[in-house]
């Protein structure tokens, strides 16, 4: 993985035993993961009593570098050897590499989920509801006497949901279901 100079410097401070002692290291690592997953940009995530003795600016540099590294690792789906290799180059000792990697493995799936939600796409169908109605008469015509369906697709785009409503006759619904079944069959074939 390619890392910029500031990220490398920050990580070196993270691995440096004179900067962070054995107790502070896991706390810092934890805080970095938590800030990615839970804190929603809350600056108080680094305001922990165990870290009071550290220089604030240095802590911020370490935090920025570590979070960048974590996101790059998730983005490229880095395996253990790649991460270990990168961290070794930056003078991490084996124990710190282990601690970092274990925490990384624990949170990897959640980070992937967050990263996958970034991006645009067409409206995603979540559910469908239907109603069968029988039209007897209307303002212009008597004796219509036709059953018809009202279908409502509930879709979601980037958090906002929207309903697509339309009506169709039984034959059209049959046609629609036929096409959906074709799509499902091709998905099955492709997965074999």
């Amino acid at each position, binding site marked *: 993985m390619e890392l910029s100079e500031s990220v490398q410097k920050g990580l070196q401070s993270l691995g440096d035993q004179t900067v962070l002692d054995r107790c502070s290291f896991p706390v810092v690592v934890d805080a970095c993961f938590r800030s990615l997953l839970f804190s929603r940009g809350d600056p108080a995530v680094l305001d922990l009593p165990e870290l009071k003795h550290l220089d604030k600016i240095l802590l911020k540099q370490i935090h920025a570098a570590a979070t960048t590294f974590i996101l790059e690792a*998730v*983005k*490229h*789906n880095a395996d253990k050897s790649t991460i270990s290799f990168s961290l070794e180059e930056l003078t991490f000792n084996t124990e710190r590499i282990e601690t970092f990697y274990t925490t990384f493995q624990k949170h990897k799936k959640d980070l*992937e989920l967050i*990263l*996958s939600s*970034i*991006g645009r*796409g*067409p*409206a*995603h*169908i*979540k*559910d*469908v*509801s*239907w109603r*069968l109605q*029988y039209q*007897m008469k*209307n*303002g*212009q*015509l*008597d*004796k219509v*006497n036709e*059953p018809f*369906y*009202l*279908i409502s*697709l509930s*879709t979601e785009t980037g958090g906002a949901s929207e309903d*697509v*409503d*339309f*009506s*169709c006759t*039984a034959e*059209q*619904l*049959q*046609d*629609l*279901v036929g*096409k*959906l*079944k*074709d*799509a*499902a069959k*091709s*998905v099955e074939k*492709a*997965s074999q």
Partner: protein
Amino acid sequence: MLLVLTEEHREHLSMLPQVEPSVVGEFGRIALEFLRRGTSPKIYEGAARKLGVSVEAVQQGVEGLMFLLMESSKHTISEVDFMDSVLILGFGEELNQVLLQLYQDNKVQIRRILSQLIPSQPAFHQLEWRLDVQLASRSLRQRLVPTVTMRLMLSESEEGQRSTRVLQTDPSTLLHLISTLEAALAAVKTSHSRRILRNIK
């Protein structure tokens, strides 16, 4: 059921027996054209000149005919009822037959034209689909996500203004959609639905 024709209506139609049955047929054709495309006063003037009657009389005759045909088609009254309703007007047998013929020939068309006046909801027209697999995105470089992308075409009104929506779904939701809609299709075949469809006629 019998049509109830108002005094005014009968007055308007009273000019019909004064002309030949072929002219009544012509009026019928004009009436249908007007139902389809809207009225045009020039035709009234032309007919009035040819027949030697006032423009108003022609207009009332054609409009009366239009209304008669529209009401009959709206209620889909039977031949017998139509004849009975027209009998009240006191026309001759031949005229009645011409009117009946007009009605029967054009009943279906008139119903279709009338149905365009109803407020309509977007109706299903077509669905196209394709299977996609997302391999990577800017934030994640190694992915394997199958999705089914669909284009749903709906027609907004009878004239056929189409609206197109592009939608996406994943394979498990697709299976859920299929099973829900199959249940919907089965609903029209239940004994409850059949009983109602049979009895409300």
